[in-house]
Every structure is written in C-alpha cells, then in structure tokens.
C-alpha cells in the first residue's frame, strides 16, 4: 500500500496543554510545525482540569519556589527527580505569567493580581502550614488554559491536523526518531509525517481502569506507540486515585473544593481526616486522603445504603462563594450526583485520575532510553515522566507540568532542528509496514474478540488488582490475567469496515495502546515490593524499620518496563537539584 508523505521541521502529537504550549514556541520561532490531534484541540482532556495551576507568585501571602519544590519532592515520596522538580518550580511563575499574557482569564485578587487558592500538599516554609499557591480561573482552570493556548496558536498560525489518529512512531535503524504515521479519521487515509523532531504530548491512559475521571480519549496512545517502538516506560506502577470522584459516575470534583473550605465526612458526620493527617487534614496529599477514605469505607463508616462512599461537605460555605469560585462543581454535582452542594453534601469516592509514570524524559523534554537521549524524540505532559511527580502528584502540578515541559521541549526541539537535526534521513519501509499491518489486520480479522468486552475485561482487572490498596497475591494474579487479555486485544474483530469516520477501528487501535499501559502497570507494580506514594501493598506495611512501608535501601529507584519480554530494569532517582541543596529523605507525614 502506498502512503502519502508530508515533511515538517517539527511534528507534535496531541493538542492538549503540553502539545499546544510546545506548538506556540515552535510556531512563533518560524519553524514548520504540524500538530496532529485525534480531537479538535479544545476537546483535549486538559479542558477538564478544574482547580488551578501552581506557581509561587505569592499574590496573597509570602511564597517561594523552594517551598514549592519541597512540597513536590515530599508529595512524590522522594521518587521525583530533584533536578526536574527544581526546574519546574523555578519556572512556574514565568510560565503562568506568560499564560496570563496570552489571555488566560484568571480570577483576580482585589489588587488585580492572579487569584490563588489553597490546595492539597501546598505549604509554606517547608511544610509548615497551607499556602495559597493554586492560580485559578473559577473551577474551570483547565478549560480556560486550553482555550487560551489554542487561541495563541491561532494567532501564531500553527498548522493543525484535526481528527487524525497517530498510529506509530517511525525510527531509523540507529534509533533516531523520524516522525509518525497517522490516519485521517474522516477518510481512513494514512499519511507519513516526516519530521526532524517529534514530540509526544498525548496525555494519560486513565481508561485502563474501570472507574476513572478521565475522558474516553485518554487511551495512552503515545505511551503505547513508544512501547511498540522499543522505548521503556518509567514508573508505570504509580497511578493517582483522586479522592473526590462523584460516586457512581466517576466525574471529577476538584480538590479546590477542599481548598475553599470543603470537608470530608463519614457516615457519622465525623471529619475523619483529622485522625489521618492532623496538620493538613482535608488538604493532605491525594494518596493519603484516598487511602483514608477507603479505610473509612472498608471499616464500615461509609455513607449511603451500600456504605460505599463518603461525603464532601460545603454546605457551611456561603452560597455566594460557591457560585463564584465553584460554579462548575455545583453544576457537575447537580448533573451527576443529583445533589445541590449548597444544600446537600456531594457523595464521593477515590477514582483513577492521573498517570505519574510514562515515557522517560529529562527536564529538557528529551526522551531518554538506555541512559542517553533518543535523537529527534521528545515527550511532555502526562504521557511523559520527567520525573516531577514521582510516586504521587500534587494537585495543580499537572497543569504546571504541561506549561513548563511543553515550553522546554519546544525549545529543545528548536535547538536540535537548527543543529544536528537538520538532516532528514530516509524512513525504513519496514517501519511503515508495521503500522499498516495493524490497520490491515482489522480489515481481515475473523472470529476475533469483541473490542467493548475485551476493554471491559481489562478495566475490571486493573480496578480489582491494582487499585488504591494493593495485595501481593492479587498483583501476581493480575499479571497473568492482563497477559491473557492481551492475547484477545491482538485479535479483536470489528464489524464496521467503512473507511469513513470508523470509530470502531479507532477504538480497536486505542485498545492496543491501552493494553501496553496495563501490562507496564501491572508488571511494575507486582515487582515493586515496597509501599511508596500511591503504590501501597499489604506485604509492605508501616513498621518502625520501614515507616509507611517505604524501603529506600532497596527501592529508591525508577522502574523501567520494556515491552520486549516484559523485562524490568531500574535506574537511580536523581536526588541532586540543579542549584540548591537536596531535599533530604524523610518519613512522609501531613
């Protein structure tokens, strides 16, 4: 089959916050840049972020980037790389101000500055007391940000390929990345996008779980493509369960609700977080709050007839505050929980929310494999692992990650394109044929597995075997189950054979990406026999020798999963920041 070819300086896959921030930098530099997205840019999942983007602007009270850095390292349970964390926290005020200059409609303080609210794990003076660091546009910060970034790209004349599904990464024999192969969803036509530099900004894969705050489109396409192209995946055992998904529906309720004064209560109305985190209480780190909630439910103090959730209570707040600062939450609660939070608490339950791991990069956005940068390949945002979030991400650091690493990867790409990347090697035909074979199989597969059923089986397995609390035996069984389900995934059959906007085909191809993420997660989680951050297992309990079950002597290291042979390797955590002193290892308590 002959495929068309288009040539660019830079190709970006994904038009969420990270991809569009990188696109601004690249397009404004005058380089020929293409952004490929399977949805119209403003439909990317950044749009659903609610509470804020962190930056130590200090608009309402003193703050400092070193405090932000300390909170991020502590939040990561010391698994985050401190060079990348320093870079991100130091850059934060600048990228947030740039975004304001792009037109982002931040809320304002009385002095006219960007409004900031408290958030989980944000503290002043190295963990002392809560600080207002989350820069917010009501509870629609992600929406406001994504639209502002799209608008800036319209101004910069960025070339978008909207509703194109990237199929695979293309590499030369020596490993250099040469672009991607992608399919136009409207026509089914396949085109090679050859580029001097390629950025993956494809977002997370929260849809590997049954109950997720994530959009349908969060299928880990970049992560799956990278794995198929021989790139290892880093720290995939670490998944954030957000404390407050609407019970039953999974839709996100921002931590900003607790930032504005919301309180979690169990069946007897008790503010139970006082027992688990006496200092930070409801604003402890997300992993800590989620575990406290599940413990309450498991011990019979859950709410409702099935005692399967807890309540998020803001009935004590002024209706004016709710309408002004949390209007979207009120709407979501009425829509999906049938509860108006002005009068009735919101039923909530921990829900899969964020992938801390991903494609290994450094803080310049360069993808790193086997200890060195992969020429021509960059990743940023949730699909990447810089690693700034380590074992648990702080709320609002995701939007910051998009801005900082979207920008830095754009800058690194410019440098590469103008230097050694100027040459454009031929793409080996075999690389193209591999992608075509995956698409062609779907045209001819007989007696195969059903996409919907197979995906459900994967999601239920992940939910049951790799949830908020993990169990040795369940993890081992989970590995076998996921490897079994993979066999089904590789022989799915679709009935719809149309070339035009074939969403059955899209979903089958997305499932092939999801399963790579599921395997990496289950296998890495099974192997890590300690508890750290969001990864907590029954055979690594809290002991005096290993507080919180963390085992720094053996496990202060990043996991690297290779698709080939499901092999695991490990690499050390970088405890050395760029300019300041290392944040020393400590037991984590809030």
């Amino acid at each position, binding site marked *: 089959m002959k495929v068309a070819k288009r040539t660019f300086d830079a190709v970006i896959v994904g038009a969420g916050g990270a991809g569009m921030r990188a696109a601004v930098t690249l397009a404004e530099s005058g380089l020929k840049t293409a952004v490929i997205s399977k949805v119209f840019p403003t439909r990317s999942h950044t749009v*659903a972020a609610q509470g804020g983007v962190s930056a130590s602007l200090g608009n309402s009270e003193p703050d400092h980037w070193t405090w932000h850095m300390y909170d991020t390292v502590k939040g990561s349970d010391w698994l985050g790389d401190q060079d990348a964390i320093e870079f991100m926290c130091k850059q934060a005020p600048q990228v947030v101000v740039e975004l304001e200059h792009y037109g982002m409609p931040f809320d*304002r303080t009385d002095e006219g500055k960007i409004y900031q609210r408290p958030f989980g794990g944000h503290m002043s003076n190295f963990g002392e007391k809560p600080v207002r660091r989350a820069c917010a546009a009501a509870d629609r910060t992600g929406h406001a940000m994504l639209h502002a970034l799209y608008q800036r790209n319209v101004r910069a004349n960025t070339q978008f390929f909207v509703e194109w599904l990237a199929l695979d990464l293309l590499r030369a024999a020596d490993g250099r990345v040469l672009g991607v192969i992608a399919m136009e969803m409207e026509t089914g036509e396949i085109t090679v996008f050859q580029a001097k530099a390629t950025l993956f900004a494809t977002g997370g894969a929260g849809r590997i779980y049954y109950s997720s705050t994530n959009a349908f489109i969060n299928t880990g396409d970049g992560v799956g493509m990278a794995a198929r192209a021989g790139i290892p995946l880093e720290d995939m055992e670490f998944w954030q369960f957000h404390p407050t998904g609407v019970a039953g529906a999974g839709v996100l309720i921002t931590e900003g609700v607790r930032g504005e004064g919301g309180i979690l209560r169990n069946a007897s109305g008790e503010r139970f977080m006082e027992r688990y985190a006496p200092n930070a209480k409801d604003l402890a780190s997300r992993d800590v709050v989620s575990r406290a909630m599940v413990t309450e439910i498991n011990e019979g103090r859950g709410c409702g007839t099935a005692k399967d959730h807890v309540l998020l209570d803001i009935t004590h707040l002024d209706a004016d505050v709710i309408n002004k600062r949390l209007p979207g939450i009120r709407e979501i609660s009425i829509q999906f929980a049938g509860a108006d939070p002005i009068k009735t608490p919101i039923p909530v339950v921990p829900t899969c929310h964020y992938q801390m791991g991903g494609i290994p990069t450094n803080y310049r956005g360069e993808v790193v494999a086997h200890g060195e940068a992969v020429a021509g390949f960059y990743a940023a945002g949730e699909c990447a692992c810089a690693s700034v979030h380590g074992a648990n991400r702080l709320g609002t650091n995701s939007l910051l990650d998009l801005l900082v690493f979207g920008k830095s990867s754009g800058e690194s790409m410019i440098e590469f394109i103008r230097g050694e990347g100027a040459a454009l090697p031929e793409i080996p035909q075999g690389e193209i044929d591999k992608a075509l074979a995956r698409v062609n199989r779907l045209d001819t597969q007989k007696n195969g597995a059903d996409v919907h059923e197979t995906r459900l089986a994967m999601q239920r397995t992940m939910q049951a075997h790799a949830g908020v609390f993990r169990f040795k035996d369940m993890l081992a069984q989970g590995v076998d189950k996921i490897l079994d389900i993979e066999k089904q995934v590789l022989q799915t059959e679709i009935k719809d054979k*149309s070339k*035009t906007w074939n969403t059955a085909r899209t979903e089958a191809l997305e499932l092939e990406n999801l399963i790579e993420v599921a395997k990496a997660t289950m296998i890495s989680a099974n192997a890590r026999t300690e508890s750290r951050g969001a990864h907590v297992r029954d055979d690594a309990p809290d002991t005096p020798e290993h507080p919180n079950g963390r085992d720094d002597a053996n496990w202060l290291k990043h996991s690297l999963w290779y698709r080939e042979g499901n092999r695991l390797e490990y690499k050390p955590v970088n405890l050395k920041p760029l300019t300041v002193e290392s944040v020393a290892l400590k037991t984590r308590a809030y």
Partner: protein
Amino acid sequence: MTSRTVKFKIYRYDPDKDAAPYMQDISVELDPSDRKLLDALVKIKALDDSMSYRRSCREGVCGSDAMNINGKNGLACLTDIDSLPQPITLRPLPGLPVIRDLIVDMTQFFKQYHSIKPYVVNNSPAPEMERLQTPEEREELNGLYECILCACCSTSCPSFWWNPDKFVGPAGLLAAYRFIADTRDEATNERLDNLEDPYRLFRCHTIMNCVDVCPKHLNPTKAIGKIKELMLSRTV
C-alpha cells in the same frame, strides 16, 4: 433508577454503503447506572459498532457530543435519558454537512470562530508580571469565556442555516464580545470594523434559539446586543 428498555430513532448514514440517510429504530436495555443519553449511546455502540458519534469528556466541558435530541440541540452527556419522551429521536446537528451518522463537518463553524480573531491583541510591551485587572473587570468575562465550542447554538440559528459562510453565528459573536470585553485587549475598533457588514453581525434577528439550547447556560444574544450597542455608539 431501574433497568429499563428505551426506544430510539437514530439518523444513520454511511457514505461508503448507504445511497441515502435513513432513520433506524433501536431498542436498548439500560442498567440502573445508565443515567445520561451518552451512557445509552455507549450501550448501543457495544451492540452495533458501526454507530458513529463523537464523545470525549462525558461531563459537558469538551463539547464533542452535541447532537439534535428530540428536535432540540444539546449534549448527550448532560441529557437525562428519563427526561425524554420515547422514541428518543437523535439527528446530527442541523445545518452542517453530515459526514457519517451523528458526525457533522464543523469546518464552517470553526472558520467563523477563527474569523473574529479569537485571541487577546495587546501590542504594549509585556510587563514582567501579570497585566492587572480588577475583579469587576474580570467579572465582565463571565458568561463569555466558558463557551465549549460545541456548536449547539450556531446550528440552532436560522440565520446561520441560511448564511453559514457570511453570518458569524452566535458562538463566534460570543467569542468576539469575550475579547472586546477584556480590558487587556486593545483591538476593540478593529474588532468592530471586522463585524461592520450586513451579514457578519446584523443577521442576528434575536430569535434566541442560541440561548435556549446552550448547555453552559450562556447568552450569545445578549453579547451580540452589546456589540450592536458599541457599533451604534461609535457612529453617533
């Protein structure tokens, strides 16, 4: 809610195999947890994988799953199934070319959005920190910036149906006013010039279908009225 069978009539068209569009009768068994119309569409697609529609966030913020539901535009993810008389009739958004089933070609809609220069224009040297804006000035953007570009409004507007190439339409005009109302934007005059035309702005006849259907409860007609006022006040 309980398990129940729900009846649908759904617009189907696949240009690869259908000579013409047709309405398909479908009954689907729903679980108690299936609350929104999008839940039902997911169930229908599990039974017939050729059923084509766009969807993403499932919480009313991405704007993907706009469609015509029992004659009125709305988002499938925010519409309660049990609030709708059956059979529930689903059609693609009116006035735009249909690509397949419930998927329309939105090129014209976005072209109009782009035509209003949807970005803050400010050529003053950027300050080191944020450009200041009082809470009251910022409040002027409420009811404007929340648009999700779902196109429910523009595709319910008879003026847009008639002149999709000349009339900006409610979504685009709401965005135009969002930038006019922003104290950081310096291009109000150029923006008004850009709309001074028998069609671009003035084809709005305040029919207010846009207000009626907006899933985010925004009011494009009011924004259009404000642009018209500004247009008038600068001519007198």
